[in-house]
């Protein structure tokens, strides 16, 4: 809500706007509108974008909103003024010596949020007051310092934002933070998580990415619980990795701790959208504490070993192969001067033979092509079928079992260090941050992959 002191009819357009200005009717005025027998009394609210120009939005005495068409017959009269102040109450927070210090870097994830009259949708709000007011339990858990890096939707992230985020994290670590939380939109949380995993070397503190799948403007939001668990994880647990910790089920029961490089958003809306693929999550956290499932977790490293390596090349693209794909898509990437390509191939990592000439061009122009698999689970293995071998012969690099987001960020990072294809190949095939599992146990496809208690009964009822 923008502060509108000059009495402009906020959000109104066209003839209606002219009329409101002429009649000196402001938004947040209490008005009476008369049309024939009908009389409407209420607060004139700001109008949202993408709505009809000729209607006003009124908040009537019961708190409900409704819209009224203002035609020539209608009369509007201002009878009062009452501006809303959409702000969570202020909470005084004192620094406690015995609690760990955690910094929350906000990038636009919604832990608290506010209405936006421009779009009628929800915008994140990220002041400390708002946060503590929404989740008061935080106060007694850690000394939390929220800082706002950006206020953007996660689909608007770009590689330079990963770099800035990593730099901000490094600064907080230098300043003595015991843990870092990144508030992030869930859509591209895994991509940022992967990038940070490669940038932050020998992490001395946990870095926990967190957000909410249900926006925090609703009483059922998963945000408060996610942030609370993130605070406990980053403040108290002994690990030095970039993780994503979000709801593990539709219930408010436990959150799963995913290694960012193995994590993927698997549902457009559910709370338990995040899953670790081809492996099991690192652990879980609930009200009774943390249970670690895996034993290959990096502990907090000595602070002096920590360094930042954010060299990246943003001329990296990703192509999703589909039957009938025209090779000109890959050709055009070469023409446009891309430095590297991640290709998502069918099955074990295949593309149609039509694409071969373009692959040959990539090889000639020394543009590395990394192949990952469309099925998401399992390894790219180009030695099994003839097609695969043909592709290997054309210089394609098998992306092991890297997820697309890991392969993409890793290739950007590798190319930031070297344009030499053999060196890039060596980096890509080396496990840097858990993005490649050297072996794949069967449980990576079975455990915590959406098979919930009660499934037997559902099967019986089919």
């Amino acid at each position, binding site marked *: 809500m923008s502060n509108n002191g000059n009495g402009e009819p906020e959000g109104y357009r066209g003839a209606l706007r002219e009329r409101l200005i002429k009649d000196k009717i402001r938004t947040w005025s209490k008005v009476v509108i008369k049309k024939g027998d009908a*009389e409407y009394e209420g607060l004139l609210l700001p109008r*949202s974008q993408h709505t*009809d120009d000729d209607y006003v939005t009124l908040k009537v005495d019961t708190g409900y909103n409704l819209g009224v068409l203002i035609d020539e017959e209608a009369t509007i009269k201002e009878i009062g003024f009452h501006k809303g102040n959409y702000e969570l109450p202020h909470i005084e927070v004192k620094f406690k010596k015995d609690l760990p210090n955690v910094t929350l870097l906000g990038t636009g994830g919604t832990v608290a949020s506010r209405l936006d009259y421009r779009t009628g949708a929800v915008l994140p709000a990220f002041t400390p007051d708002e946060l503590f007011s929404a989740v008061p339990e935080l106060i007694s858990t850690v000394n939390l310092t929220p800082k706002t890096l950006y206020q953007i939707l996660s689909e608007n992230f770009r590689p330079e934002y990963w770099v800035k985020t990593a730099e901000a994290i490094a600064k907080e670590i230098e300043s003595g933070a015991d843990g870092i939380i990144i508030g992030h939109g869930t859509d591209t949380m895994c991509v940022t998580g992967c990038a940070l995993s490669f940038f932050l070397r020998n992490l001395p503190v946990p870095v926990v990415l967190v957000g909410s799948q249900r926006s925090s*403007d*609703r*009483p059922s939001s998963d945000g408060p619980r996610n942030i609370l668990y993130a605070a406990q994880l980053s403040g108290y647990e002994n690990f030095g990795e970039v993780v994503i910790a979000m709801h593990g089920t539709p*219930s408010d*029961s436990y959150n799963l701790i995913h290694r960012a490089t193995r994590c993927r958003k698997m549902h457009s809306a559910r709370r338990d959208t995040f899953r670790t693929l081809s492996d099991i999550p690192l652990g879980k956290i609930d009200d009774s504490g943390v249970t670690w499932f895996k034993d290959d977790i990096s502990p907090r490293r000595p602070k002096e070993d920590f360094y930042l390596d954010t060299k990246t090349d943003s001329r990296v693209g990703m192509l999703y192969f589909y039957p009938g794909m025209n090779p000109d898509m890959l050709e055009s990437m070469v023409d446009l001067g891309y430095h590297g390509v991640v290709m998502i191939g069918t099955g074990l990592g295949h593309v149609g033979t039509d694409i071969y000439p373009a692959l040959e061009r990539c090889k000639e122009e020394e543009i590395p092509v990394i192949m990952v698999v469309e099925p998401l689970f399992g390894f790219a293995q180009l030695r099994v079928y003839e097609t695969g071998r043909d592709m290997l012969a054309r210089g394609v690099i098998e992306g092991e079992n890297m997820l697309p987001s890991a392969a993409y960020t890793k290739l950007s990072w590798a190319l930031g260090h070297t344009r030499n294809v053999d060196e890039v190949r060596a980096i890509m095939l080396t496990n840097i941050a858990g993005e490649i599992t050297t072996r794949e146990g069967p449980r990576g496809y079975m455990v915590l992959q959406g098979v919930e208690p*009660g499934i037997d009964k559902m099967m019986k009822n089919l």
Partner: protein
Amino acid sequence: MLDPYNLDFKELGFHAGLEVHHQLKSKRKLFCNCPPILEENPENMDYSFYRYFRPVLGEMGDFDPGMLVEFEKGYKVIYLANERNTCTYDMDETPPFFPDLEMMEKGFILAAYFDCTAFAEEIVVNRKQYLDGSITTGFQRTFICARDGWVPVNGKKVRITNVHIEEDAARRVNWEDTSNRTVYYNLDRLGVPLTEIITEYMDVDNPEELLETAKQIGRVLRISKIGRRGSGAARQDVNISIAGGDRVELKGVQDLEKFDIMCRHEVVRQHALIEIKNTMLQRGIKKEDFEHTYVDISQLFDTNEKVYATIFPKMKGLFGIEVQPNKDFGLEIFEKSMLITGIPRKNQFHSDEIEDGALRANSDYPSDVKINHDLYSKICKVLNPKENDAFIVVEGPEKRALHAMKKIVERVKMAIDGVPQETRRFLPNGNSEFLRVIHGKDRIYPDTDTPPIVISLDRIKELTKNIGKKPWEVFDELHEKYGFNHNHVDLLIRDEKLAKFIEYTEQLQLDGNLSYKLLIILPRATRRKDLLLTTEMIDKLASVLSKKIIFKEQVELVLNYLIENPQSTEEEIKEKFDLPEISDEKVEMIIQSKIDKYDLNKIQEFEEYQNLILSKITGEVLKELSYHFEGKMLAEKIRQMIFVKEDG
């Protein structure tokens, strides 16, 4: 306490309003494509999950006070759901789908029945917060279709302030233990389209008017065929106040016949609370007199839990006052502290209970805190209360017992203001219990998931131009034409037979009472006997009556025949029941043979006997004539013959 059955509602300044919630007939739920079907069998539940809720800001930037109290309850909410009627939307795992426009239109049609003048020309979907778990999102999606309408009630207009369309809430599964912090809901009902119709509460002055208002609204939902039928389709919330009291909402009344007892028990409650307030003022009590000082007296009890006591200065005798039949003020306070904190009311004790014949001991929820006179003295030694002081004792786990004490002190402070605004749960015995602090307008904010939907006045006019007659217009008409009372008309509306009735009376030219018999009395009677009577059979009957193939005296005979021979045609009926005309001589002969069996002098002498015999003979003759004769004419003939005898 006033006598609930001897109240002068006018004198007491009684006012009441209604919020009628009625489910709408629909093919789908309001914001998703699940079928609106219920699942009664708990064995059939496919999955469950649980959640916790937190309050969020209203649009004007305030927390609704009611929501903060809801949060204080700290409920864990367990949902039970069924694959066939709930989806990820019902689980609050996916955003809403586009609302069912047909239901939106139904809202405008309903509004036209109520003569609403102000329509929402652009629908704005709002979120109304509920933290009790009854809605998985924590808010109900709801919107106004229209405002400023009315229904006629006993010769005056009761205003309809708002007509809403909204999604129904989930069904609470267990209500047995209100102190439990875990609550259960069945998700089947969640999202079923519902209308909420609100009346102006200053307009209703007594329980009879309240009942009639509810009936008028119910009639509209029936006559318009918009309301879903069956049990549970309608629920009413009632707002009640008396002069000096305040608006109290009583929730979830399904049986309109309970309105009367509900009003009476609420009136005596408000009156008692006002009396308590007056006594407190007379004793010079101020809010500051009540301190949050909780004394740990656990050592006096044989318990593993904590026992706390608090003194309430100058309150002696007030907690023991009866506020509703068989319930004292103390118990009323404990109901609230129990619901919010989970400390059972039986673990809460007030000092008036020590008196001989104290009401609490014989109430539905006597105290379990065992305090005899000896222990009472020991507690007094610790607390050192003054002569006119009262005290309250709470037993339970430390944190929750302290929480309960806090709520009790807060509630006693409120007593000096009289009647608190509350939403209360109506109980079968007519009393009510605290449910929550009344929810205000600050819990409502716009739904950011659904953009506004333009309806336009032209579209509204188009939708509402062909609505049928309003129930009260139908009543006036039928009352005037056929002398029908409300019961007659209500049954025609409830059984959805009004259109048929008009067809029978106007097109088939059948008598009103005969039409009513065909459409209401006979089907209901045969239903009671478990016989199948189809609409086609009734139509066939109406047709042969209209064509004068049969006499109305033959209706039952033909009906029985039709039930046994459902396929028979009009021709067959004609053949079987349209008997050749009987000559007057033959009829008179039969009549004569019947009259002869009775003492003619007695018939002529006593009028009552005469009427009795007359109808008896008519019946006997009709039966002998296979009912193929008009009864009225026959009766006249018999009467003439009796009196001809006399003259002769």
